[in-house]
């Protein structure tokens, strides 16, 4: 097991290396050249020349890449044009909001998606199954920001059940510990603050959850259908095991393997999907920040975002692979 983990960690090296090359290539294909990523659009020519020299843009590409890597490793991504503060600082402040939103959305998607997919598979070919399949296809086809609009218009504006924007009501006087608002409330035992933050999370999380929910439903359904036809399920039945044992230990346990992998994949997609949802709900995470950055051509921010999401994505996949090896003994041997 330890050997597997080490090997898997070593495999990260070429992946991260490849990512850095892609990022470097991206930087060099920006309109205005790589210095655009360090310069405000309004920068003077003198300033531009200064930055070019500082970046060593006249040196060979390989030297430039080395320099670029040095900065990456130190997480030095420059300052945001819009706010003038270092990009990493901006992300540090906003990232918890996005993580909180993503986690809640994922919990919703998993808790609703797996049971629904399972039930649909058990009722394969009946009306319930058909409705579930159609519904999940529809879920994939709804642009999440539009779902955000609708949820907001109905449940926040019209019915007033949920707040329509922000992470917490302004009048809530909460102590900040971790910047994860829900967690902060729990840590400081300010239950109101925690609940209030959770309340703000529900609508955007539902909107964000729609796509992973739909995908999890379909994957679970397909996977359960496949496992139900497996010989070992028949063996379990032939042993006269109780229905719950057959379902839990033999069907679900095996059917969950591909779903677990997809959950990791979806979480990465969610982090970037949060961009769209957060914009709708004016949620103070990296999503809203990024939307602004796109319209302002704030390259340092964009590069930082791409890098961070990509690295997180790689790490999530690593975590998924490791958990997979716990769930499936066959992987460890390979």
């Amino acid at each position, binding site marked *: 097991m330890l050997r597997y983990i080490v090997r898997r960690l070593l495999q990260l090296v070429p992946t991260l290396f490849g990512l850095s090359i892609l990022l470097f290539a991206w930087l060099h294909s920006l309109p205005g050249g790589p210095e655009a990523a360090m310069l405000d659009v309004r920068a003077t020519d003198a300033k531009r020349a200064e930055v070019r020299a500082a970046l060593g843009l006249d040196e060979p590409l390989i030297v430039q890449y080395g320099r670029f890597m040095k900065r990456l490793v130190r997480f030095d991504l420059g300052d945001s044009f819009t706010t003038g503060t270092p990009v990493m600082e901006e992300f540090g402040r906003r990232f918890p909001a996005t993580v909180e939103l993503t986690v809640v959305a994922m919990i919703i998607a998993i808790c609703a998606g797996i049971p629904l997919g399972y039930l649909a598979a058990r009722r394969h070919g009946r009306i319930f199954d058909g409705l579930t399949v159609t519904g999940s296809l529809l879920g*994939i*086809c709804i642009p999440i920001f539009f779902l955000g*609009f609708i949820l*907001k*218009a109905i449940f926040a504006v019209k019915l007033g059940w949920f707040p329509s924007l922000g992470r917490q009501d302004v009048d809530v006087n909460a102590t900040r510990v971790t910047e994860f608002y829900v967690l902060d409330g729990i840590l400081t035992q300010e239950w109101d603050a925690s609940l209030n933050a959770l309340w703000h999370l529900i609508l955007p999380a539902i909107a964000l959850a729609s796509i992973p929910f739909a995908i999890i439903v379909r994957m679970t359904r*397909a996977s359960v259908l496949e496992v139900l036809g497996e010989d070992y399920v028949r063996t379990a039945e032939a042993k006269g095991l109780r229905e719950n044992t057959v379902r839990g230990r033999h069907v679900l346990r095996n059917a969950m393997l591909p779903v677990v992998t997809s959950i990791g994949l979806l979480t990465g997609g969610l982090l970037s999907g949060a961009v*769209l949802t957060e914009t709708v709900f004016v949620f103070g995470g990296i999503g809203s920040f990024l939307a602004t950055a796109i319209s302002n051509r704030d390259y340092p921010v964009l590069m930082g975002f791409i890098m961070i999401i990509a690295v997180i994505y790689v790490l999530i*996949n690593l975590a998924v692979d490791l958990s997979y090896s716990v769930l499936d003994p066959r992987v460890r041997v390979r």
Partner: protein
Amino acid sequence: MSAKTDRIDRLAELTARKDEGGHGLWYEAFRRLRRNPLAMTGAVIILLFVLIAILAPWLAPHDPAAQTWLGEIRGAEGFIPGPRSGNWLGVDGLGRDELSRLIIGSRQSLLVGVVATLLGFTAGAILGGLSGAFLGMFGKAGRWVDSILMRFNDMALAVPSLLLAISVATILGQGLVTVMIAVGVTQIPVFARLLRGSMLAQSHSDYVLASTALGVRKRRIVLNHILPNSMSPVLVQATLSLATAIIEAAGLSFLGLGGANAANPEWGVMLADSQQYLATNLRLAVYPAVAIIITALGFTLLGEAMREALDPKLRK
């Protein structure tokens, strides 16, 4: 990264199988499709969508750019005329006929979908086809080229597509062409992996072994047998990819990457523009959104049904 890749690989393997009884895989699949009401719904939606897009200039009752009701609109109080005779769906925030914009907009959406898919398909097919051909034709060196190409491909596949699209779009600047290319780029690794996997599955099939045994040249086998037979899962993916492209394009437009063009309305841009009237005129968001959803659903229904019809494990 295996959930996505598993799905692709599974699809790729399917062509290598042939149904019993002499009927080709596609014959069987088509028979099954015709009996599937969801697939037929999808096909009808697609047909209608394409017809509307083609006939748009004749169907649209008004010039989509003409601001007919400008005098009545009081944006500050949020008054925008709703449905009435002459403007069946009302007008948008600038007084342009909503229905006409929707109808003309179908052209852009179709264009975005088709161009993005074609781009992803062509580039992906070249990449995947090359990779597969290298693997099949050039022995050990070929295997090396293949594994390096696929390493990069899997990496690109691992990057969330919206992120990939955003990075491409920042290089190219705003505009509809940007959206097409950005969305197309996200499809390249999908098609590449699919085609390569499909070719690989084909190359292990019996008839290829038989041709090899009969001394047919490798290049001939690849070009005459493997490549044509590897195409069916690619067609399924292309159908699904049209849906993804239309939805993703809407997302990019929403983020302001689509640009705005009064003469050429686009559903995603319309949806993005409707944001400012959201509180008072939700319908302006609903119309283009419903158009996007129905169209995407049409392609998804048909694509998924095709996949299911091809996959023996899913049909019991």
